[in-house]
């Protein structure tokens, strides 16, 4: 009985080691499996995953309109005060005041790319882009205003 178990153990060990060696042997002989990206040599053809979180951007359509209502949900959701929304009040033709964003200030240098602001946004006005080359010589350049100058909120968002 002991001898039987002993031999079984030896053969089991050899078999499992061989399974491992087959795997690494396969990778060794199949160079196409290599997953290293030759950055920056392949900058032109670089493929990034859809879910990669590089920075927060606010998409504008062709009429220079965005979907941000200035509700500040993102500002509240942000764990380290990366977003600061400065609102203004537009006077509508009928004399009413309407809240709108003046500046959507985004501090890239403080951002941890957690994506909570994107999840909090009720109108999908902001999203995560997958740009990642953020290096600059002056940190002031990292404080960005996301809404483009003269942009307005898109009709029918609210």
């Amino acid at each position, binding site marked *: 009985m002991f001898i039987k178990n002993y031999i079984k153990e030896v053969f089991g060990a050899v078999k499992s080691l061989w399974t491992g060696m087959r795997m690494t042997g396969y*990778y060794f002989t199949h160079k196409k499996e290599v997953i290293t990206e030759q950055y920056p040599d392949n900058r032109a053809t670089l493929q990034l995953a859809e879910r990669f979180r590089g920075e927060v951007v606010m998409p504008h359509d062709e009429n220079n309109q965005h979907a941000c209502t200035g509700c500040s949900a993102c500002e509240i959701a942000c764990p380290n005060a990366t977003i600061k929304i400065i609102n203004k009040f537009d006077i509508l033709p009928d004399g009413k005041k309407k809240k709108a964003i003046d500046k959507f200030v985004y501090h890239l240098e403080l951002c941890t790319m957690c994506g909570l602001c994107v999840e909090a946004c009720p109108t999908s006005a902001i999203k995560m882009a997958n740009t990642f080359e953020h290096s600059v010589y002056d940190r002031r350049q990292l404080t960005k205003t996301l809404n483009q100058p003269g942009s307005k909120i898109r009709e029918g968002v609210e």
Partner: protein
Amino acid sequence: MISLEKIATLIDGWLHQHFNDVITLLIECVLVGVGAIALFALLGLGLVWMERKVAALMQIRMGPNRVGPKGIFQTSADTLKLIMKEGLTPDGADKLLFNLAPVLVIIVAMLILAPIAFAKNFQIWDINIGVLYVSAVSSMSVIGILMAGWSSGNKYALLGAMRSGAQIVSYELSAGISVLTIVVLTGSLQISEIVQSQQTGWWIFKGHIPAIIAFVIFIIAATAETNRAPFDLAEAESELTAGFHTEYSGMKFALFFLAEYINIFIVCAIGATLFLGGWMPLHIGNVQAFNHAMDYIPSSIWFLGKTLFLIFVIMWFRWTFPRLRVDQLLNLEWKYLLPISLVNLLVMTVIAILGWHL
């Protein structure tokens, strides 16, 4: 055709024409020494590069590819960096032993080079107890490692050295017994005779299953004796920082690093000589055309090819298997490898006595 044997005879003849016997011998000693050091340097650079490339491909990476084509000068650049670094000796260290240890390890590696047959009739020293000499001298390297660990005055270094001692002393047994398995077949300890006995076929083919078992055990024991993963308990980065060479830096560290790769080359050369026929070309029975084609490949290429293949296998182990714990390591040797190799030796002796081998 140019062979290493012809070059050696040419140099020997030229020296004998111009100098008397004593001076010729001295010059030849110097030449052999320079050749050995050159071989060491080349092996160190080449094998480290090979290791990094093999590791990278097995881990689905690229490996070094910036310095020179395919990164072949990466290791030269690393060596240059190590040469220029400070070789620090700690205050609490035993200065003499600390500085002697890396040199001793290298000298031991150099000594084992002597009886290895690199090509047909190309051997530094063909002693009649070649295999015994190799196994005797190779166990000296543990003294170098213990010396390094003890003299560092560092608990990690000492622990690493102690582990290395336990490991090498244990695994030498099964390595020795698997070597004996082949010696039983050849009836000689002389390396040149062992190679000659494989003229009709390598022992791994001629010796049936016991030879294959002995080969596998030899490779496992060789991996353990050179302190390589999955048996790298002497270094054990995760628990002992770097084991016995924790306190070493610069060129002294480089010597330990070099000695590791030299030792791999040597154990693989021994394995290739005993089991895979050394410089003997691959011959299949009476297929004359095939045999002649194989003969055309120089013997040095055969030897180097077989050795490199075994080195690749050992690298393959390193980058596939998880590391063993100390108790598992000793279990493997004393409960599995040693009993199996003893029974294996017995079976092989029966085969040799009855003349069942081809």
